[in-house]
């Protein structure tokens, strides 16, 4: 068992252990932990996952698979953890005594997500999913105000119901196929598909993953949780957990294939989540809730890519997930800084007024990330959408593609409204906003990333295609 295969996870485990010991110590180490320890750890984690990219092999008697697909997503999750760690500088209303627990839950959620990307065994998948979900439920309710426990409870019960459905589906699948390892199941699928119970189990299992992706029927938790969770956590939920959802869906669909009827159902779900996400976002006043609905709409676009079920579909979803992480982090970074200056964690549209005068850097970052979310060239969002929709169009889903593009036009309306507030309105208080070191460097990295990846995406697209090829090969 070559240790390097498991490097990122070991780094996380070690960190969790260290933090647990710190909680025992009497002195309160909260601020240095969040201020210095987590970002440094994030950097190490990113380095570890990028260095372990080329490795591949099977662990824990084929329950855990390390291949470019899993490693690629691990890097993505590490990146979003690192971004969240940096965003923690502008955290609000998290009581001092809970800061270390905040760190621990963040780490355990990341560990759970990383395990999920690698898990090819239903049991391993279930355990890691529960690990990451439980830590996210707690993270969502750490804030001091009245409404965060309500969000936490909602998130938990919704998640538990979804994992219950997953379990029920998994039981049927395991029962009929006789094994919990996805690799063997994928071998048996052509035989077993004729039994309705088996495909029913498959459908229920993959239906449950929509919860993490916040796709249509299972998206209800997203707006409430995004609004009441602290902004760094919202960013983490929006980026990391959605990326993991994409990872599992790619893995699951690739190995077990999508039954014909389910493609039509997924198409309908994608259609509704796009429309719902974009239209409701038009009427939102709270920025985090607006971004929640925008992420529901983005889930719709990713579903369109996934349901193509083709090699191009999976690789473009992988690319789009990466682009999505960058775009969303940009938007949440600006929201967190604005929230910090406005000193309440739910900035409204009006809090963004005159951002261009107060800090041109933030305004530019906001403009670029929102336009990229809307799919405007030359940013990465556009290239992502282009290859995503071209995969769907190859499979003949022309209506979904047309509907997706029309939706991105509608989405441009509320993105541009936000941009208008930033660029056009006069600021209420016109003091310039100082952007601290870490956030400024992250912002710069994001701006360059959005434009560079948009214009020169060839390298990453080829990597994504390799990852999918290797992931599919048993």
């Amino acid at each position, binding site marked *: 068992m070559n240790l390097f295969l498991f490097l990122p996870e070991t780094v996380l485990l070690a960190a969790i252990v260290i933090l647990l010991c710190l909680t025992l110590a009497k002195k309160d180490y909260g601020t240095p932990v969040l201020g210095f320890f987590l970002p440094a750890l994030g950097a190490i984690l990113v380095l570890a996952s990028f260095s372990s990219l080329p490795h591949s092999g099977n662990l824990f008697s084929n329950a855990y698979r390390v291949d470019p697909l899993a490693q690629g997503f691990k890097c993505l999750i590490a990146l979003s953890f690192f971004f969240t760690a940096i965003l923690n500088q502008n955290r609000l209303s998290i009581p001092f005594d809970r800061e270390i627990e905040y760190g621990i839950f963040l780490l355990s959620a990341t560990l759970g997500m990383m395990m999920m990307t690698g898990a090819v065994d239903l049991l391993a998948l279930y355990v890691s999913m529960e690990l990451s979900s439980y830590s996210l439920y707690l993270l969502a309710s750490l804030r001091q105000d009245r409404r965060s426990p309500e969000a936490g*409870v*909602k998130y938990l*019960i*919704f998640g538990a*119901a*979804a994992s219950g*459905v997953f379990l029920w589906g998994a039981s049927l699948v395991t029962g009929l196929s006789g094994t919990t390892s996805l690799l063997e199941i994928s071998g048996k699928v052509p035989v077993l*598909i*004729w039994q*309705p119970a088996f*495909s*029913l189990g498959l*459908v*229920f299992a993959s*239906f449950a993953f929509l919860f993490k992706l916040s796709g*249509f*029927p*299972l998206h*209800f*938790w997203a*707006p*409430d949780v995004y609004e009441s969770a602290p902004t760094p956590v919202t960013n983490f939920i929006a980026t990391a957990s959605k990326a993991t959802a994409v990872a599992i869906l790619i893995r699951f669909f690739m190995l077990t*294939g999508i*039954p*014909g*009827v*389910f493609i*039509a*159902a997924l198409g309908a*779900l994608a259609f509704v989540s796009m*429309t*719902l996400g974009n*239209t*409701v*976002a*038009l*009427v*939102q006043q709270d920025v985090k809730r607006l971004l929640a609905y925008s992420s529901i709409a983005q889930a719709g676009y990713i579903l369109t890519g996934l349901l193509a079920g083709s090699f191009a579909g999976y690789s473009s979803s992988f690319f789009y997930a990466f682009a999505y992480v960058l775009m969303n982090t940009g938007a949440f970074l600006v929201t967190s800084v604005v929230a910090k200056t406005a000193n309440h964690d739910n900035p409204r549209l009006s809090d963004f007024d005159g951002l261009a005068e107060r800090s041109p850097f933030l305004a530019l970052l906001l403009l670029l990330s929102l336009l990229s979310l809307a799919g405007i060239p030359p940013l990465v969002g556009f290239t992502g959408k282009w290859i995503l929709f071209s995969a769907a169009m190859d499979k003949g889903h022309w209506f979904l593609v047309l509907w997706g593009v029309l939706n991105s036009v*509608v989405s441009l*309306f509320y993105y541009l409204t936000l941009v208008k507030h930033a660029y056009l309105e006069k600021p209420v208080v016109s003091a310039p906003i100082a952007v601290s070191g870490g956030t400024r460097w992250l912002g710069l990295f994001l701006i360059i990333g959005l434009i560079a990846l948009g214009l020169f995406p060839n390298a990453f697209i080829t990597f994504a295609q390799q990852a999918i090829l290797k992931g599919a090969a048993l």
Partner: protein
Amino acid sequence: MDLALLWTIQLSGLAAFLLIQLLPRSAKKIAPAIGIALSFLAAAASAKLLLDHANGFGLPVQFSHPWLAVSDRAVWPNIPVERYALFVGFLLDPLNLTMITLVTSISFFVQLFSFYYMNEDRSRARYFGFLSFFSFSMTGLVLSNNLLQTFLFWELVGLTSYLLIGFWYEKESAATAARKAFVVNRLADLGFYLGIILVLILFGSLNFTDLKSQALAQVLPPATLTLVGVLVFLGVMGKSAQFPFHVWLPDAMEGPTPVSALIHSATMVAAGVFLLHRAFDLFSASATTLLVILSVGCLTALTGAALATIQRDMKRILAYSTVSQLGLMTMAVGAGSSTAGFFHLSTHAYFKSLLFLTSGVFIHRFHTNDIWEIGQKGGKNDRLAIGFLAFGLLSLSGLPPLAGFFSKDLILEAIKEKNLFFYSGALFVSFLTAYYSFRMFLVIARGRIRREERPHAESRALKISRNVPLLCLATLSLVAAFLGMPSFHFNFEMLLTTAAILVSGGGLAILRFRDPEAAEQKLLAGKTFMQKILERKFFIDDAYEFLVKKVGLAIAHALNRFDRTVINGLMVNETSFSVMRLGRLAALLQNGALQDYLAWAMTGGVLILFAFLHFYRGTP
């Protein structure tokens, strides 16, 4: 050698215009000098050309150069020339030569006279610039060798008349008159434009030398021949102020008088008749076109003459008389002899511009256009002007030795052969012409002087620039009569009829206007029914007013509201508001209750379940 001369004639106007524009503000004073010098150069060049080809030897000379490639076998397989292009070039033949000398000479004299007329006006430079630009475009029109180039300069001439009519643009009436002139011309030019395109498409070439009636008859069926002829005639109607489109000419008198002398009596309005003569084969190819031309000409002549009889404004009388003379010329062409029409055009150009310049002298001196006031302010004391006025009016009404008599006789003969009804119309028109010319002369010459206006002293240069053009124009009109006469045959019977008309028309005028004061009282006292109609100009202006305001702008107003409410309101705003309403509706779905969320989620799952079972026929 000819090409060099042609280029000098053509470009001298343009050179003057550009030079004057580029003059710095301080040197604006020398603008008249440039204008006059270069127009003299053009006149000299055309005179030289006239001498070179005195009796038409070595003509016609043609230089043409391809301008625009219009090649499309796909659309018009039957076009004769494989890759035909639209050409630009000069054509020189007897007709052009006489016309070019006429145009350049008159424009030189008018420029000379304008030095006297416009010397107090501050924006003189702009005036002389536009005048030179006018002579450039007029020469271009005359010398062109194909229909398209004629149309090109046709529009430019329309533009300069717009600029010159609206020269004193501070005056609201001048600006409106200018716009009216341009729009009416434009309306007529549409027909001309369409005619040219039809000829180009159906016949392939626009060159005058190719437009022979036999060639046309072979290619085009008779119906299209008439259509094309009438369409091109529409353009002529616009420019030469024929019946429905004559409304702009009287209003064009808002411009300075030398302008009216040059443009609205001699050259521009004559362009139409010139085109009739130039492209006569196009019209004579079908008899119906000639009939149309004849009837429109007669209608114009009658309305022009009738309206001229009751005008008080001196320039308006001359304007209406130009309209009626143009009607006569068109009737001559309609009657089949375009040479008679053209001959009358050349003589009329000279004595009519002479008349306008004399009216310029009166207006400049007495600062009023009304003939009664001029009479009262001592019009008859200006010996020279009265003399020229008499000379012009008599040649207009056709006194034998003068120019008018010969050209009008030819026209009457041509129309007589053609058709008696129109011949009687022409006679009545010349009767009315005699009547209003004598009326004008009597009112000015015999008016009792009330408040005498002593002429303020003028410098020698001004005197020359006033009298020389008048003198030259008078002599030239006589010279043109004798020189340009196509064929002199003494028709005694025609001499008798014209003399009779002259005597009766003049006598009636003398009878009524022997004592202008009494005539004015009688006029003011009671307006006969006939006078009321004439006053309202046969309600044509009101018809235009109605068409433009009530019909045209009403449609535009309705379309504008349609655009704002239906397209902008309905298609654009409604769709976006409905999307917003859909959003608000969908937001209700998110009502905060956990169990509603779970209910919606589970129904979603169950729906998929049912869909699955329903469609699941064992095929994955």
